[in-house]
């Protein structure tokens, strides 16, 4: 998804830009030895390592699996993938009419709807607290909040599993308050909640760091000027902080939406998609189908996911792009 991101933001100097605009505009009229042509070749040379890696590890596999999603390939043909029949859109129709996939789609959207706002709001509040409120030990707090991002998700999920068993420490703590603890892994709704808690815990650090960077880029003069004009804290937050944070908010919300649409590790490690399939995301569905030998179906499923991610990212860019 980095490609969509960098291209549409038009950010200068980002690796995803296919070629520098300055070269593109004029290169045709230049001869081999002209300064422009040399510059163009140098430009290509610089982006070559990226282009080669991108082709090898992204473009070719994506194109191949896209092609496979229009065939009837099963695990029987994986050693000889050309010995398959072309079946048009059959796989996509099958996948979209599969109740398990529909359920996974819905589950994924529920994860996005819960996790993205939660991560954004908590991350923003923490960033605000670190930026203006907390003076002492600021860097310590920042590090502590960021630890879940770098923590090993497998280890975290194993500990989580133990902590949330019916008679585990979490429920023991809840019961000491005089309330019966929920059945975290047996009740579908609580299992979804559990996956949400783990994923949000894991992602607020990223949100916090990005918001913090955005907050620190807001010039202090604006606040000084507005306070001279008699604006209070809320007023300046509404009229200065939030508008100037728009690009950051866009970036964070797109990053988080893409991450949560692709959610895999948390349900895979924590619940295995259960109970009763209630936490099976699209990515997990795709992985399972591949394991079952349904290669074509899993490819079709992953393309539907890719399409969904693309559409959602596009919509977000439209809605949240800077207003001039």
């Amino acid at each position, binding site marked *: 998804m980095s490609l969509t991101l960098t291209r549409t933001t038009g950010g200068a100097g980002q690796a995803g830009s296919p070629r520098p605009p300055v070269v593109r505009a004029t290169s045709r009229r230049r001869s081999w030895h002209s300064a422009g042509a040399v510059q163009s070749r140098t430009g290509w040379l610089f982006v070559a390592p990226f282009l080669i890696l991108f082709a090898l590890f992204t473009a070719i596999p994506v194109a191949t699996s896209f092609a496979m999603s229009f065939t009837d390939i099963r*695990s029987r043909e994986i050693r000889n993938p050309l010995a398959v029949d072309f079946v048009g859109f059959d796989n996509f129709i099958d996948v979209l009419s599969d109740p398990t996939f529909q359920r996974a789609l819905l589950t994924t959207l529920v994860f996005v709807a819960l996790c993205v706002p939660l991560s954004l709001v908590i991350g923003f509040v923490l960033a605000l607290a670190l930026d203006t409120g907390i003076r002492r030990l600021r860097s310590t707090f920042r590090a502590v909040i960021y630890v879940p991002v770098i923590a090993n998700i497998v280890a975290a999920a194993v500990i989580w599993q133990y902590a949330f068993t*019916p008679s585990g420490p979490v429920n023991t703590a809840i019961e000491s308050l005089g309330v019966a603890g929920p059945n975290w892994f047996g009740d579908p709704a609580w299992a979804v909640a559990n996956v949400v808690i783990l994923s949000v815990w894991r992602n607020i650090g990223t949100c916090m760091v990005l918001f913090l960077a955005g907050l620190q880029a807001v010039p202090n003069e604006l606040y000084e000027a507005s306070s001279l004009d008699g604006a209070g804290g809320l007023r300046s937050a509404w009229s200065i902080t939030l508008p100037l944070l728009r690009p950051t908010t866009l970036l964070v919300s797109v990053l988080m939406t893409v991450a949560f649409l692709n959610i895999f590790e948390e349900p895979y490690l924590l619940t295995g998609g*259960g109970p009763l399939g209630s936490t099976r995301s699209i990515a997990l569905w795709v992985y399972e189908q591949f394991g*079952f030998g349904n290669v074509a179906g899993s490819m079709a499923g992953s393309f539907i996911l890719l399409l969904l991610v693309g559409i959602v990212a596009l919509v977000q860019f439209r809605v949240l792009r800077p207003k001039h």
Partner: protein
Amino acid sequence: MHSRSPRPRTFMAATAGIAALTVVLAGCGRADAPEDAASPQAIDDAPATGTIEIWAAGGDGEQLPEMFDLFQEQNPDVEINMTQVPEDDFVAKMTAAISGGSVPDLVYLFTEFQPTLLDTGGFSPVPSGLVDDAAFFDTAWDASVVDGVAYGVPWYTYARPFIIRTDLTEAAGAEVPTDWDGLRAWAETLQDSGVETPLDLVIPFNQYTSLQFDMFAHQAGGGLISDDLSAWTINDPANVEALEFWGSLYADGLASPDEPVTMDWVSYLSSGRSAGLYNGPWFRGWLVDANSAEWVDENIALIEPPAGPDGGRAAQVGGGNWAVPVDAANPDAAWKFARFMSEPENQLHWYEIFGNLPAVESVWDEPEIADNAVLAPIRDSISVGVTVPKVPTWGEVGEVVAEAMERVARGQAEPQEALDQAQAQAEAIGVGD
């Protein structure tokens, strides 16, 4: 939002590329005749050389290096590298390796993995004359046979007994169960005596739960698939009867759909929070590690699984086979190691190391095994063994059945309705022919 002009062109290029690929693919079609299996090459008796890359799943791998040492004493010019692959990911990782062509030289395929993985055509037939197929238990040898061709050399086999806390049973004044009624009465008595969830059945609900249910189904005279493997028989009346019994164990709180999870099996049985479960013979070794050999001898018994309502006996059998991928770099040495592992003295040695039972039938007559009273019920159970439905779509259907069972265990569906629905889904998936 400047520089938007490159987009249409990039898009066109991408579309053109995909279109070209599609044309290439459309040009090819499914071959009418299946690819000829490579003719098995004879393996000589010369010492193995080169490097053998081995993939093994589960707990076996931890003890395997002892066998490598023995093999290397006889074959000094051989190197062995082993990678332990997590059991849950084995099929997906192996499938990916086969499609990429970068495969190990030798893999140990659990019985449960074989239907899906052998269907890829990614494994070589067992070279003729490598081993004597008549020496192995039929269930063990047949597990890797597809269309009359064997693709693996059996290593070990087992039946899953019912592992029971005899001390708690005696203390509660219960009878050791021999049939379903006895099992229920035993569980009720133990629960009255303070054992929280007397029965520990396989959770979370996955294809292993379905295999366990297949045992109950066979005890009732049913089974998940027809004998000739041509059709799913999931909503067979005998299966419904089995699921009614199985579901009632949950409904009455004698088993729990939430606890204990895999990693708690040993501790729950040791601490008396549960008092019985169906598991493999290696489980005894885990109990010895967690407690002591004396404790296990005094308090634990391995018995044949309680029989069904009309005396139907059945036990889950499993094990696995050594298999060599078609693209293996060193198949010669790989097959030699597989042959080495099937030699009677090494079969016995592995039993002594790990407690896994020989797949070679004659080794069961060795005094170490023949005189071991603990193993007698397991040997008896192998003769009534139920193995995994040997079709490539089992992995997927196993999950479908597991979900039906989970709905029953959680009281969300009636057995008949759940199995009818699973049957419909399984028919849509097919048997993979």
